[in-house]
């Protein structure tokens, strides 16, 4: 019976002709747009996560503590929530680092009468601590330390990147949603056309006592089939675009996002897109079914 119903759905799809093709193309377009934004968003997210790992908060100290005091201070900071690691940087180590940075101009530092650089603590954050709220809380706590003179660093710029990513997600979802509605309406039109073409068959089916499931399931399956074909085509479009454009975008991606290469959508995301396409089509088929209730 299921084979017969699927056969009827395929037959209906062929009958819908150009309208079915238009519905499939619109589904392809909406899912390709959605998938495209998803791909960019995923990579921005990867970049943000990578940068978040490199975030440091620097606690500049009023005066250089004795070794034992420095160790005690490190332990106190280490115990604060959201702190992953704490490293004490003495004044001399800071000056050494400056000289390394200055390179051949390091002699400038040697001419200084005294070392002007403060001792400091380099604090890295845990995954939970690397949110703007948690980082602000930690900075507030670090500011209360008697030894602290000034606090540098933070993750506000990463937050701006995350906001950009969210904006990208919203744009992607909005464009995808508009195209998805268009796809649903086109599938509905294609299914309604098939209903019109099949009215004699439906009449016969009802006349001989076919169950409503048998009468209506091919319409739903036809819509789902259109959606699935559209989704497969959208994924194919994304793969082709990724294969062609990916290598060419590598330098740009490396400079802007700090990633070696663009990452393609995960298998899970591909499955979600295919499921979404099938459901989009099913929705269209279902709507047509509702409108043609005899």
């Amino acid at each position: 019976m299921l084979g017969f119903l699927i056969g009827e759905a395929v037959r209906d799809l062929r009958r819908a002709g150009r309208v079915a093709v238009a519905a499939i193309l619109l589904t392809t377009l909406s899912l390709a747009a959605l998938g495209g934004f998803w791909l960019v968003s995923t990579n921005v997210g990867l970049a943000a996560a990578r940068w978040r790992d490199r975030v440091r908060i620097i606690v500049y100290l009023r005066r250089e503590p004795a070794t034992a005091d420095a160790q005690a201070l490190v332990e106190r900071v280490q115990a604060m929530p959201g702190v992953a690691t704490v490293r004490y940087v003495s004044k001399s180590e800071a000056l050494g680092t400056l000289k390394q940075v200055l390179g051949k101009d390091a002699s400038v530092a040697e001419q200084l009468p005294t070392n002007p650089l403060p001792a400091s603590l380099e604090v890295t954050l845990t995954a939970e601590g690397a949110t703007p709220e948690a980082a602000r809380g930690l900075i507030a706590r670090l500011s209360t330390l008697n030894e602290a003179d000034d606090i540098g660093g933070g993750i506000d710029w990463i937050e701006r990147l995350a906001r950009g990513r969210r904006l990208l997600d919203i744009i992607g979802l909005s464009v995808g949603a508009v195209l998805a509605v268009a796809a649903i309406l086109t599938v509905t039109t294609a299914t309604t056309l098939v209903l019109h073409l099949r009215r004699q068959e439906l009449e016969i089916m009802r006349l001989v006592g076919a169950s409503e499931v048998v009468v209506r399931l091919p319409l739903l399956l036809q819509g789902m089939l259109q959606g699935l074909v559209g989704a497969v085509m959208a994924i194919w479009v994304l793969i082709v675009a990724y294969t062609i454009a990916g290598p060419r975008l590598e330098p740009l991606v490396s400079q802007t996002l700090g990633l070696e290469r663009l990452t393609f959508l995960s298998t899970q995301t591909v499955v979600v897109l295919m499921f979404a396409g099938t459901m989009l089509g099913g929705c269209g088929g279902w709507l047509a079914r509702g409108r043609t209730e005899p």
Partner: protein
Amino acid sequence: MIELHRVWKVFAVGPVKVPALSDVSFRIGKGEFVTLHGASGSGKTTLLRLLYREELPTEGDIDVLDLDVPSLRGREVAGLRRSIGVVFQDAKLLPGRTVYENVAFVLRVLGTPRREITPRVFDALRAVGLSARAQAYPAQLSQGEAQRAALARAIARKPLLLLADEPTGSLDETMAAEVIDIVKDIWAGGTTVLFATHQAAVAARLRQRTLTLVSGRLVKDEG
């Protein structure tokens, strides 16, 4: 098998109420062959549509196969219709399917096991003398052949009751005679038949109990 008690069917056309059937009562027993005779517009089709619940009566009781037809819902309606074969004046064959496929289609939608379909289709086609035309499309059939194919489709399900709505209405005398003979054969096989016709000659040729409708009223029950 069929029992109607004081059945009325009134259609509302805007503010005007048009009675299609007025106070119709009769009973048809199992295995009977009954002709329903009346001019066009006398209410024959409406009466048949009430029997397979394509219409609901405005008033009155209708029992078919021991089922209270007006009270049936959803699946029960489908169940009733599975026991009834219906043929129409215009055959209603599906144009994109062959004769074989037209008959097989109804068996498939009713979930008949695949292995049973072909033998049952050919049994039905043999019964109407159409097995040689199994692969023909409806457009390639004469009107008589199309009507025989519709009969094959109706009997392939082995219905207990056959409702024939003017099956000879658009056929010439020879073709009509062929169809009548086939319907009589089906009846001889044990199926109860209600045969609607506006043709007095056909009613006479059937030589069976005849119910006569005039303007929606049952005026005669004879034979």
